[in-house]
């Protein structure tokens, strides 16, 4: 059952009136408070000044007239198509169409043999990506973890390589610098058969944390973002304030500041390259006020991520956000409800590209193979909710009711046969609905064990080599590829 790209928008935490209030507040923030920059962004700042922004070079502060923002933001495409190497995995990001997938850069994994947490490796990155490739409800692959066992200089090319070798779903990740970006684009072009073909069907994209909340441009990431614009590679404009530490404690204040950061970022992109494909990348988060740590599993994260989509939809730019995180350290009841709540709220909000929604634990520090299987099930359920209840004549089933008649049963009706595989969400097998007897006979296994079994079974299958052998050879000649695929 492919439940990708369904229509969200059923949950609207902001009323139409409130959307306007927040949007106006954000424009005011940019006009009055502005954003700051550091050394190294002189060219970007000059470009902004030439196009109407006011620059205070002593304070390194940029303020934006509202008309300038509105004019530039209008140039951003209303629809961005992120492709898979296989076109069945293409994502059409626009309006309220919903997609969910993995999130990035974890540094620890629960070892599948011992269950204990340890550092992630290049092999984990490859194997987890293979697992994601096989889990139908996970719609895209944001580089799930860091290969902590390789040299930092080899990060960018090797992490993209491992993902592209393991999966035909869309691959997105951050890069360390502009050189890393160029290398990755070159490698992807080799696979695509040329840069023009890659631009036409972008099966990779990049994330840049261009803003350091509150309201500050990150020099390095802004450079990468602008370079991606010039290369016409889609880019997600990540900014991720935590309510209470890097944005106001209140949800509305956090949304207003974050929307302002996004408006500024999109403006920079569109001035760099008019029409550049960008994803509005506001990720509203929360600080745990007792530790100042990141509270990814809080229900308010789901609420705010639904709201931020409303704001991106208001300016007609597809969005990248975050939900389905948990603060729990292991797959348990807490991770189950935190993920289900936040992923469902963000989905029903209509978010276009919800990352972090598969595999993660301990906010975003840890992943687990079994968690991907459980989250695949949670995402499947979320998508089913979006699908809603069909109410046409066939689904109303008046004919069947009449032919079965009072006192009959529907078990053998052709109508039942016709709909039994599609009307309800058929799980991936991880959910237990057996009798107690049967469950006990099978070893009384809990969801973590069941999920791990499924993961191992999926990974035991043959390895699909998504990068054709002859291209692989050329790539390995050109770049220092460290992954050995047996």
């Amino acid at each position: 059952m492919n439940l990708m790209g369904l229509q969200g928008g059923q949950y609207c935490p902001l009323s139409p009136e409130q959307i306007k209030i927040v949007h106006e507040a954000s424009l005011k923030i940019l006009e009055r408070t502005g954003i700051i920059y550091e050394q190294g962004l002189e060219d970007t700042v000059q470009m902004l000044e030439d196009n109407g922004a006011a620059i205070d070079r002593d304070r390194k502060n940029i303020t934006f007239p509202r008309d300038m923002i509105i004019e530039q933001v209008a140039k951003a495409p209303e629809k961005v198509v992120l492709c898979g190497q296989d076109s069945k995995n293409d994502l059409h990001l626009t309006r309220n169409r919903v997609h969910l997938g993995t999130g990035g850069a974890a540094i620890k994994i629960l070892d599948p043999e011992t269950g204990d947490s340890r550092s992630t490796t290049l092999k984990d990155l490859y194997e987890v990506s293979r697992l994601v490739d096989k889990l139908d409800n996970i719609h895209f692959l944001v580089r799930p973890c860091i290969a902590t066992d390789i040299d930092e200089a080899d990060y960018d090319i090797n992490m993209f390589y491992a993902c592209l070798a393991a999966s035909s779903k869309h691959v997105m990740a951050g890069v360390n610098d502009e050189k890393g970006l160029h290398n990755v684009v070159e490698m992807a072009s080799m696979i695509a058969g040329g840069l023009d073909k890659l631009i036409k069907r972008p099966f990779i994209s990049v994330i840049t944390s261009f803003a350091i909340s509150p309201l500050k441009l990150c020099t390095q990431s802004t450079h990468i973002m602008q370079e991606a614009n010039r290369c016409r590679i889609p880019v997600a404009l990540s900014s991720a304030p935590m309510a209470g530490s890097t944005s106001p404690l209140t949800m509305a204040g956090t949304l207003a500041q974050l929307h302002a950061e996004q408006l500024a970022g999109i403006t920079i992109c569109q001035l760099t390259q008019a029409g550049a494909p960008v994803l509005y990348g506001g990720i509203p988060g929360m600080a745990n006020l007792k530790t100042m740590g990141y509270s990814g599993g809080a229900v308010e994260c789901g609420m705010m991520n639904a709201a931020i989509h409303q704001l991106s939809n208001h300016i007609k730019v597809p969005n990248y956000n975050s939900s389905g995180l948990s603060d729990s350290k292991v797959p348990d009841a807490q991770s189950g409800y935190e993920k289900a709540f936040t992923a469902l709220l963000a989905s029903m909000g209509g978010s276009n590209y919800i990352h972090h929604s598969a595999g993660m634990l301990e906010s975003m520090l840890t992943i687990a193979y079994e968690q991907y299987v459980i989250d695949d099930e949670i995402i499947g359920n979320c998508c089913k909710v979006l699908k809603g209840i069909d109410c046409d004549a066939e689904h109303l089933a008046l004919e069947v009711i009449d032919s079965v008649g009072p006192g009959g049963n529907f078990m053998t009706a052709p109508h039942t046969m016709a709909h039994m595989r599609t009307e309800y969400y058929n799980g991936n097998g991880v959910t237990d609905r057996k009798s107690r007897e049967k469950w006990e006979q099978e070893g009384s296994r809990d969801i973590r064990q069941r999920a791990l079994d499924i993961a191992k079974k999926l990974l035991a299958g043959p390895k699909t080599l998504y990068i054709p052998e002859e291209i692989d050879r050329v790539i390995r000649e050109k770049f220092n590829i460290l992954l050995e695929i047996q």
Partner: protein
Amino acid sequence: MTDFNEIKETLVNLDEQRLIQLVNDALEKGIPAGDILNKGLIAGMDIVGEKMENEDMFIPEVLMAARAMGKGVEILKPLLGEEETSARGSVIIGTVKGDLHDIGKNLVAMMIESAGLTAHNLGVDIAPEEFVRMIKEKNASILCLSALLTTTMPMMKQTIDAVVESGLRDQVKIMVGGAPVTQAFADEIGADAFASDAGSAAKTAKALVNQF
């Protein structure tokens, strides 16, 4: 013998106005500034630190307490003897080069201050040479390095190497921390200590100062 309980309680209750009043009153009564600092303000912050570790207090409240304490210290500073001021260890803290994460590091700096040490917070993206320069300039006894990225953890090692090269290694104890940093990594790169959160970082810093 004076009762410092009121000062401690007032600090824990975040009543800055009253705290200043109490510090001034105590001075008027002839109580030595050093006693007010150690038995009143720092002892009060110890209670706050404990409450923070037990998650009985919100961090913004802890920050308010630290600010109130700072106001008290300002009043006492001119009256403190040479010995008392220099006994307070001087700490250099910063996030290593290439790393821009500062929320956790700032929290650590704040808790170290409220443990009675002087923290010089250099900021983020700090090069090894800059750390070395500041150790000299501030005659520091502790160096605290923060890193949140696996890509910048090697920079911790490089920073320690630079300290060794500068000949200052015997003068400073080095403590490291940040989400991906572990005790094992700290050992591997030749740091003297590791702490996993701001509360234990402050305790460890105090213990390190006492080792001198």
